[in-house]
């Protein structure tokens, strides 16, 4: 009888230990990419209970480690975010999700993506270091276009010159 009682206590304790445990890997995302393109990275999320996990991102002009400094919405910075805002977990489940960002302007962006349990008290914030560069294709296009444009202008000028001489 005592043995059964002991086993019951151990099982109950284990259940309590895992009651509200949330895990995410990795703890920081370093995303380097180009503008006007989806730049993605993966997150592995584990939840030891059942329920929804809610995701939300905020941004800051400084590379701070304090959550209260992250108050800016992605729309304000012209960033388009694509990640699951609500994920349902069954008991002790692990899911891999894609976290993608796209932007209009090149630059370095500091953000935090917080996943909170809908019913519990646990939340995890993932630091985001997003670096967006101009499209290389644009640069190449300009380099290709420039000589052609100059040659076109020369031809027009020569044509005008010839016409004025004839007059």
């Amino acid at each position, binding site marked *: 009888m005592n043995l059964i009682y002991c086993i019951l206590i151990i099982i109950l304790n284990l259940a309590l230990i895992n*009651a*509200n445990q949330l895990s995410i890997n*990795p*703890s920081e995302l370093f995303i380097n990419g180009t503008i006007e393109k989806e730049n993605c990275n993966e997150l592995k999320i584990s939840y030891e209970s059942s329920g929804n996990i809610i995701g939300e991102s905020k941004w800051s002009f400084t590379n701070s*480690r304090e959550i*209260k400094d992250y108050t800016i919405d992605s729309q304000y910075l012209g960033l388009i975010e694509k990640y699951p805002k609500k994920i349902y977990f069954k008991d002790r489940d692990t899911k891999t999700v894609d976290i993608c960002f796209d932007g209009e302007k090149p630059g370095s962006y500091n953000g935090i993506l917080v996943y909170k349990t809908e019913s519990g*008290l646990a939340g995890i914030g993932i630091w985001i270091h997003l670096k967006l560069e101009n499209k290389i294709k644009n640069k190449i296009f300009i380099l*290709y276009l420039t*000589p052609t444009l100059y040659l076109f202008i020369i031809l027009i*000028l020569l044509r005008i010159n010839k016409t004025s001489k004839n007059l």
Partner: protein
Amino acid sequence: MKRVVFEYTIVIISFLAILGITLFFSLNLVNAESSSNMTMKVKVDLTGFNSSSTGEISIWVPDSIDLGEVDKTDLVSDEVGIYINNTGGIDIRVTPELKDSEEEIFKYLYFRKQKSTSTNNTDLVSFKKIGDYYLDIDKPMTGKKYRAEHAYMQLNLSDFEGDIKEDVNDYNADIIFIATAR
């Protein structure tokens, strides 16, 4: 005179055109060189070299916290101890936050690390309001699955300027303990 200016313009534009063509071909030559060598790009992700580790972040928090009773004559609740476990592989900072930022009563929640006044470290014993408080928890020691840290919390409505019209039993609000990499 007009013609001289015109010819000079042509010379300048020709120079720019030659410059552009040179750039164009040099770019192509670089591309051609890299492709003619038949090189193969080797890729590798080098991680974990930043000052902060990017390993798994994981916490365990209690399901609920009961602060007891707050009376009109005694506007301060019990001081309740809470345990939070760092169950991941890196040092973390845990910041309590109200789920509803408009919540009127629970924004008067205060936290501190230690109850005792025996320590000289005033930072540990002085209360900080929710929003300004955080708790640092180191990663678990080798061979251990978690590291526990405790803090104390209290509801202090002394500065509350709102109006509570009637008694409410089990008034509650959601607090989220958000863990981030330190």
